[in-house]
């Protein structure tokens, strides 16, 4: 189902590591679906973007959020909790994209209703493959909630 292919898909990437931001952008650049990547470098900024506060008054509503756990100011788990307890934001799929492989992080994320949990692989090609898989699944296959 690629009904949204006419318009661009909005992706919010919450990530403080510029290296990972760049790699994710590189991966999404080659995506089949046209997409706009917005980057929030910490949890507080991410929530402002989602709630269209301050400078983000005209920000688009993201179709998917890629969320790191290890973030300055407000942690990924806190951001996840805020999104999933906000009625207006709850429907947006959140994919945890993190380097943590700890069982407790995985369990906690799913308890907070994360839609998927993906560990960042170390190798470049593996990383690109993972991001493309996310793109393929969440932007091409899944039919998202209408607004």
């Amino acid at each position, binding site marked *: 189902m690629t009904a949204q292919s006419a318009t661009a898909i909005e992706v919010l990437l919450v990530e403080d*590591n510029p*290296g*990972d931001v760049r*790699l994710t952008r*590189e991966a999404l650049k080659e995506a089949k679906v046209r997409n706009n990547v917005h980057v929030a470098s910490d949890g507080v900024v991410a929530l402002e973007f989602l709630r269209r506060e301050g400078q983000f008054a005209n920000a688009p509503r993201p179709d998917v959020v890629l969320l790191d756990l290890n973030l300055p100011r407000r942690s990924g788990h806190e951001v996840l909790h805020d999104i999933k307890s906000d009625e207006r934001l709850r429907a947006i799929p959140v994919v945890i994209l993190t*380097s943590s492989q700890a069982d407790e992080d995985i369990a906690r994320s799913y308890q907070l209703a994360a839609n998927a949990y993906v560990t*960042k692989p*170390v*190798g*470049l*090609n593996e*990383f690109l493959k993972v991001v493309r898989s996310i793109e393929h699944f969440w932007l091409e296959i899944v039919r998202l909630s209408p607004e």
Partner: protein
Amino acid sequence: MLRSWSFAQRLTALILIVLLAALGGFGWLTRAGLERAVIAAAEARVAGAARQTSELFATSFRNQIAQADSVGRDPRVRAYLTTRTAANREQARQALAGLLGRVSQLGGVELWDSAGARLIAVGEVIPAHDSLDFVGRARIGALLVGPLRREADSLHTAVGAPVRDGARFLGFVVERRHITSNPAGVRVLNDLVGQSARLLIGSANGTWTDLVRPVEAPPAGETVGATMRRYVGRNGEPMLGSLHAIAGSPWEAFIEFPASALLGPLRATDRQMAGFALPIVLVTLAVAWLLAHRFTAPVRELEAAAVSIADGQYGRRVGAERGDELGRLASAFNAMAARVEESQRTLEQRVADRTRELDLSEQRHRRNLDIVHEGVVTAAMDGRIAYANRAATEMFGAGAAGLVGRPVASLFPVRTAELEGVLTRVREGDPGNTLAAERHEWRATRNGATEFPASVAFGHTVVAGDSHLVLTIADESPREAVAAAKLREEAARASEARVRRLLDSNIIGIFFWDLQGRITGANDAFLQTIGYTRAELDAGAVDWLALTPLEYAARDSHAIEEIRRTGTWTAYEKEYIRKDGTRVPVLLGGAAFEGDKSNGVCFAVDLTHRKEVEENLRRSNVELERFAYVASHDLQEPLRMVHSYVQLLAERYRGKLDEDADEFIGFAVDGAARMQRLIEDLLTFSRVGSKGGEFASVDIGDVLRDTLVGLRLAIEETRAEVTAELLPTATVDRRQIAQVFQNLLGNALKFRDPAADRPPRIRVSAQRDGAAWVFCVRDNGIGIDPQYYERIFVIFQRLHGRADYPGTGMGLAICQKIVERHGGRIWVESAPGKGSAFFFTIPDRRSEG
């Protein structure tokens, strides 16, 4: 029982038996004759009644047949039988219907042709199977009466008359007659057979009636007399009955009556006879008794006299006035009695004299024995005590009851077999000469309660052919008590001397204690441990109460219990409060002195140093693991960046810069990759202890199969041959054991023989060794020099250049850590060029419990 009867009783019984047999035989013969006569008379009466019944029925049948015959003579009927037209048929039918209307007992009327086929039927139909019978009966001129038939609760029969035209036989008129209850008729019939009797009518097909309702056919029973049969009636009463044919018809009459009606009078006769017999028997008994008594009187007199003499009345005599055999017997008896009386008098005098002498002698002996200090006991040869002197009675605490009558075995708690052996030897020994031979130091028992040591000598005397056992017993307790006290004293002295030498060595703390909690002595090492001076110890300032923290009181009393029980206690750890109030951990062991358990010695090892070392080791292990985990985890993040971007560089700019740049980038990519593997291995290593999984029962064969799937590519590339023996199920952390196999098999594939014609051959096996499984992974690779057996398991240690064999040097270290976590060990047996065999053990937890 019969043997104890007197002659008079036996005679009486004999006469009575003969008389009763004669009386019984006569009575029985008379009774049987009477019964035959009564049954014959009853048979005659019943036969008469049956004959009359038969005539009554024949008359009734003839009347019925006459009615049918009247229809048979009707011209309309004959016309139809002669010329069978529809009109004739209707006419004949009306003639039949006329009869049906006239006679109430008729159920139906039918017209049959001469062969018995039904032509017309009015009313109820007659069963066709009567027709053949009728044709046959008509031919011999018998009455045309069918058998009694039953439909539900009603009975009927067929009665017919032949229709003739002169000599020509045209057919039959047949009536279906209901057999209905006719109380008047029943009465007449019953009067014929008598009030108590019952008349049943029926036919051979088994349908029977008592003239009121259908009944069952009479039973066969047993034959009595000429025609009677005897059987048990429905109400359980014995019945008699007899069967008679009803002339000219297929019907039968059965007359039955209760046997009591016939045989009742006989019972009265029986009673009369019994009435006669009883007085006869009584009179006979009296006469027989008198006769028998008279005949046996002299014999009884002799018997009574003999009994008196046996009782000691030697003056008794009997009357001897009769001239017959009994008279002569009485004279002889009187003469014998006189002789017995005379000799008895002489004997008694002699016995009295002798007894007096014996009594005196016996008293002398007893007095003598009673002042002897040792116990003297004589017993019969079976071991039962016959005499015990005063010393023996007191020694065994027997009191007033004495020892006489008790078995010798009850005096000594030795094994029965041993005592029996002694008694047997003594019995078989030379009488009067065995006292010295059988002497034993035994335990003796006083009242079966307390024991005392005794010296026992056995002998055997024969007096006038009568054997006795003689025992002399000396109480050895006073002597033994002295010896024991001396032994104890010596043991205590020796023990103390030994302990003293140990004490003075001052290697460990040693002190002496008593059960009041006092410390009665200590060496310098102990004083140093608890921080007191010798002066303070001597002043009594140091005791259990001052040294022991409250929480150890319970543990200490447990140890005291143990001392009381076993004289020693199992070493345990506790703490002492030093003089300065600090605590010192010690290991306490000790024992009570021999003989006196309220004193003892104790060693106290100061554990302060050992505890510190243990704690440091534990802390440093934990810190090391934490460090390894945190370091490797935190290193991952920047490494990922380096690795990713160097790879990106390599992909986008290879060939676009100069050759040097390509080479540099190549080194960077390689370094990053290696570092990544190192960190992964380090993480794995640090997680073995801290992040291990649960232990569960796992099929090791399964684990190996999973591992081989992961290594499939490498196995195919190297053309390796991996074989596995049957592997057991063991209690392990599945993921970790898989890691061990992965590393060992990976090594076997990696360190293979470089010769192309020698592909790796790997064999995995397991065998039981005591309570553990020993697993083995054997290969035919390059092998290892024995000097490196230890080193290969050390973290980061490698034996080969990276260019020859890549790797982090962590694989075997991880294996070792995993195996040790499972409580096993790992080692290698190998030689360069001969292949290697890696062994590791896993304890079999199931066998533990």
